[in-house]
């Protein structure tokens, strides 16, 4: 493998050939370059605000004080959102823009029937495209995350503890999973709709619905079923649970819940806590394992949503009859 001449003499599995081609397509496309620029700029912007404010946010009795490094990703002075908010906002954009024309552009170019008449299984194409996009996203997010970490080490001069490092890594993995959800949704629309513009628009519509309108709807429902001021604790508790459950249908909610817990080790619960539960608890950070355990259901939910979208696109692609153009 070290010798490039030998590498060119090897027979490579068709699946890897497609993946390689897709990755090189992505990396050399204008779309990707623009995306990288946007994401890199916003990340550095948020890092800048984090670095200028990091001295003011650490208070003497802050339970997260030990995790100074993680604050790089979470603090902001109000002018620019923090790093993780940026990722949760730009992640869908990244996923959608890498996926919305996966299948339909191949069909419109007339390359789909040509590729499928080669001795490859039909699902290689869609799997390879998914793997390629996911690889690109993973490399991008890891690079950005580590870049922020590296710059943080240089500027604030404090290296992250291993615990902080692993929280970071899990945060990036979670972000990849979140982007993968949007990627799969976009791939599904690209199989369903012939026109790339239609599928891009549908993805953006779903995204807008989830970020803007869904919240409004939940607020309306919340107003309607709001218990009176005299209601018992139990009723208020159940009311809160219902609202939370409604919100947790959103992948973005799952993602921000999970990232909050991972990046702020002092967060102990994502739902309401009763006084009895909190009594005697010393405000302090949770170990990584406990934090992960806390968000396990969120992670599972995200994985399920991602897999569901992939299965839908896979099935509709496999059943589709491939004609030229």
């Amino acid at each position, binding site marked *: 493998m070290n010798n490039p001449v030998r590498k*060119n*003499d090897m*027979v*490579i599995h068709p699946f890897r*050939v*497609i993946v390689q081609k897709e990755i090189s397509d992505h990396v050399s496309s204008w779309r990707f370059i623009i995306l990288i620029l946007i994401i890199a700029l916003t990340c550095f912007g948020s890092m800048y605000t984090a670095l200028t404010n990091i001295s003011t946010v650490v208070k003497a009795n802050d339970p997260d004080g030990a995790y100074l490094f993680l604050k790089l990703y979470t603090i902001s002075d109000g002018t620019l959102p923090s790093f993780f908010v940026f990722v949760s906002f730009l992640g869908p954009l990244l996923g959608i823009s890498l996926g919305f024309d996966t299948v339909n552009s191949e069909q419109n170019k007339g390359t789909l029937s*040509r590729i499928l*008449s*080669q*001795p490859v299984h039909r699902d290689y194409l869609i799997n390879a495209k998914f793997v390629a996009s996911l690889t690109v996203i993973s490399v991008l997010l890891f690079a950005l995350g580590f870049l922020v970490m590296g710059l943080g080490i240089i500027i604030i001069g404090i290296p992250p503890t291993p615990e902080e490092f692993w929280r970071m890594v899990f945060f990036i993995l979670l972000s990849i999973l979140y982007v993968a959800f949007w990627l799969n949704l976009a791939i599904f629309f690209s199989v369903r709709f012939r026109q790339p513009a239609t599928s891009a628009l549908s993805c953006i519509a779903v995204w807008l619905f989830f970020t803007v309108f869904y919240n409004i709807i939940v607020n309306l429902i919340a107003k309607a079923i709001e218990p009176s001021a005299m209601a018992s604790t139990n009723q208020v508790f159940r009311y809160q649970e219902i609202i939370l459950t409604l919100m947790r249908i959103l992948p973005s909610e799952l993602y921000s819940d999970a990232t909050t817990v991972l990046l702020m080790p002092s967060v102990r619960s994502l739902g309401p806590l009763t006084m009895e539960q909190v009594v005697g608890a010393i405000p302090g950070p949770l170990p990584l394992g406990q934090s992960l355990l806390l968000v396990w259901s969120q992670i599972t939910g995200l994985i399920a949503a991602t897999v569901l979208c992939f299965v839908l696109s896979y099935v509709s692609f496999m059943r589709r009859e491939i004609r030229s153009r």
Partner: protein
Amino acid sequence: MADTIIELADLTKIYGTHAAVDHLSLTIRKGEVFALLGPNGAGKTTTILMMLGLTDPTSGSVRVCGIDSTSNPIEVKRRVGYLPENVGFYDDLSGLQNLVFTARLNGITANEATQKAEQLLAKIGLSDASGKKAGKYSRGMLQRLGLADVLIKNPEVIILDEPTLGIDPKGVREFLELIVELSREQGLTVLFCSHHLHQVQQVCDRVGIFVEGRLLAEGNIQTLSERLFSGSPYVIEACITHTISEEKDLQGKKYSAGWLNKILKPVEGIIAIDIKEDSILIQCSRDAASDIARAIVESGAGLNYLSKKEYGLDDIYYRYFEGGENHE
């Protein structure tokens, strides 16, 4: 037969209630150049998709190179090169890169693929454009690149769906000659699909006429015309300058049927007389050209020209399509 390479038996594909391909049985021998002719929507592309295992037949079986396409499409696709209608390439890759990509999908190493692609590009006359992006190729260049793309996997059979679409007449001729030349060189079986008869007529050994999912006839052009025109094998086309006295019967037409019947009555073997815009077509059971000429001249009318019509694929084709409609 031992040298059968494509074998379709009772192949049927039904979309909803519409039978796109209706009990099609067809065998193509090794090394043959076969043309499947039919109008748009006749089910030609569907048939090809079934041959490649890209779509499953409703019933019947397809065997290509002795392999069942439905249950083992990968092996079939390894041996069959398919040039789809309106073939497309990756615009951002050069012609060479596009070919290398296809070759590597077929399990050819990168080095070997580059070598082969360069050879093929030289053969199809695109060496100069090999580094140019495929997005900048002209339609004719794309079709030739498509041919190279089909040949790079060393196929046993090549299937070309409407290969001449969008190429200018000169280009069509060159392209078809190139296909036949290359396939003879390598002993390939070629299956064309087309609705352009003239073009395919020049190069194919055998023709199948395919209308509304059914194969109406197959054979070489000669047998087809013999079978089709067995009732009236001779058609004589005549152009007559008529006399002024007949003008009152004409009713806008150039010839009057009554008058023609009268003067041609003495000639034996005439089956039908068909009056066209500028000429008349006379169908006969024997070669009656000289008798017809004499009859016309003796009637006092002027004979501009008289010719015996040869049947081309065109006539066969139209004849069949008319026939096809009549079956309904």
